[in-house]
């Protein structure tokens, strides 16, 4: 009986669903070339890996901020319909903590990564690298995290030490 069923299955090409390991055909396409392209390398790490060429300063960033960001984040980046980006450094232990970029974010590289991929919401990826470096410089300089004349680029941005750099404890892994 068992033999007859097995024989039938073999003839039909059917495989009994008893195996512990699932049986499937690997169908992924080798994609090493794709993986090297810029559109698949959007991620910027805290060590600066992924940062593009280019540079910008706070004074270059101010008019860009007013043009592209102030409508939601307010003039001076103090907040509007969108959250405040500056100020409130040292407020995290107070009765009314405020989580701004400058008071809360642990890495300056995150600012570049986030602006490039998400801002402004109506036209993501519309700002070029110089403009994004300049916007980072403008925001960070508001609270003296960098001096007003510092040029941010792929080397200097990862060197910026954010005030709340050591403010996080990872729950995972336990």
């Amino acid at each position: 009986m068992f033999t007859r069923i097995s024989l039938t299955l073999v003839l039909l090409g059917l495989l009994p669903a008893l195996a512990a390991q699932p049986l499937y055909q690997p169908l992924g396409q080798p994609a090493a070339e794709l993986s090297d392209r810029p559109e698949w390398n959007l991620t910027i790490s805290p060590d600066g890996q992924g940062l593009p060429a280019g540079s910008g300063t706070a004074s270059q960033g101010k008019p860009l901020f007013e043009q592209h960001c102030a409508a939601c984040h307010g003039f001076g980046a103090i907040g509007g319909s969108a959250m405040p980006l500056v100020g409130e450094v040292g407020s995290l232990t107070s009765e009314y903590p405020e989580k701004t970029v400058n008071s809360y974010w642990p890495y300056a590289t995150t600012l570049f990564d986030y602006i490039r991929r998400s801002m402004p919401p109506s036209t993501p990826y519309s700002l070029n690298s110089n403009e994004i470096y300049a916007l980072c410089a403008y925001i960070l300089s508001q609270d003296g995290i960098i001096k007003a004349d510092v040029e941010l680029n792929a080397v200097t941005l990862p060197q910026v030490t954010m005030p709340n750099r050591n403010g996080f404890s990872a729950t995972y892994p336990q």
Partner: protein
Amino acid sequence: MKKVPLESRRQFLQYTALSGAFAGFSLPALSAQPDIHYRDILPESMTQAGAGFSNYGQPSPYENKIIRWISANPDTPGNGVSWSPLHELQGTITPNGLHFERHHNGVPDIDPATHMLLIDGLVDTPLSFTIDVLKRYPQQSRICFIECGGNSNSSWRSRPIETAAGYTHGLVSNAEWTGVPVKYLLHEAGIKNNAKWVIAEAADGASLNVSIPLEKLLDDAILALYQNGERLRPENGYPLRLVVPGWEGIVNVKWLRQLRVTKAPVMSRDETAQYTDLLPDGTARQFSFEMAAKSLITSPSHGMSLPDNPGIYQLTGLAWSGRGKIIRVEVSADGGDSWVDAELQQPVMSKAFTRFSLPWQWQGQYAVLQSRATDETGYVQPSRDELLAKRGHHGFFHFNAIISWEISEDGFIYHVYPD
């Protein structure tokens, strides 16, 4: 009629039904009845043809107030949430049109024919997969909840928000997700020894990116193509969504385009600035992925009222835990002084909604209804005071304390923080 013992309600109902049946036989139609104008006495639905077929069914128009509640920034209407109306639903499966939403820059329009998933980074061979190819892998189904890390966040405020239960606590839903176990594809690409994290990236207008421990993806994560049997809804990640059972919504990346295997997390905005839990000492919990056990009574709940006094009401609600199965839900009608075990709808599944219910005889007294869940790890849902004592008032994310509904003597129901 024979006296029926009160303790046997079922027997009582059966007996009554039986005598009714016999009564029917004892009424022979011996004489001709006058012609009855059935069209005058039957409901209209029985005296005419109904509507035709539909290619895709919609809820009854009488149910058109059972909707998600939307809250978005008018300047960026694609950035916001919509809450699931948990207080209007029953059972455990959230209908696809009512599954909660959290978008960071709107719902993208993605053609599945051109969409691609890339797995690269610390792998032997970077691989790409089309949607058609993914459909050829063995499909695994998993019923699980997805809860936004920011669900119930108004409950951190010092005053209770007076909003319907779902519109406060409904950034959580439960569905059957079907797709390819992520581990199949990661193993196919070949994971390098130093790999620890995976950065998931979305193809939406926020290019949302978050880091997820590799270990979890190899455990029970699914690349979902289907939601409750049909292809994903656009607002839930069509054509491809990462489902990470029991972990906060943000890592269940919708519109998934890339999984990059790495040594360390990317420290993206949504794992540093957001979805981290500020503690009273000014530090914050990061990568607090698991959604701890939680429950709430969905009916009766805020905004409803109890029409009969005295009356019997069926208390019902939902419980869930990101750490496994719910093993117990207790209900209190006196603000937590005394508790009674509720009945759990079977089967109880790990990391999924568990429906609980308990009949309640209301005598018109002031009451505070609460539910308290326990999961299989032994973790017990905390009171609001216990949670705040540990986490302060500014955690914003991961609120899972007991939720209280006050019943006034006239039967109205309010959201309260008990003393």
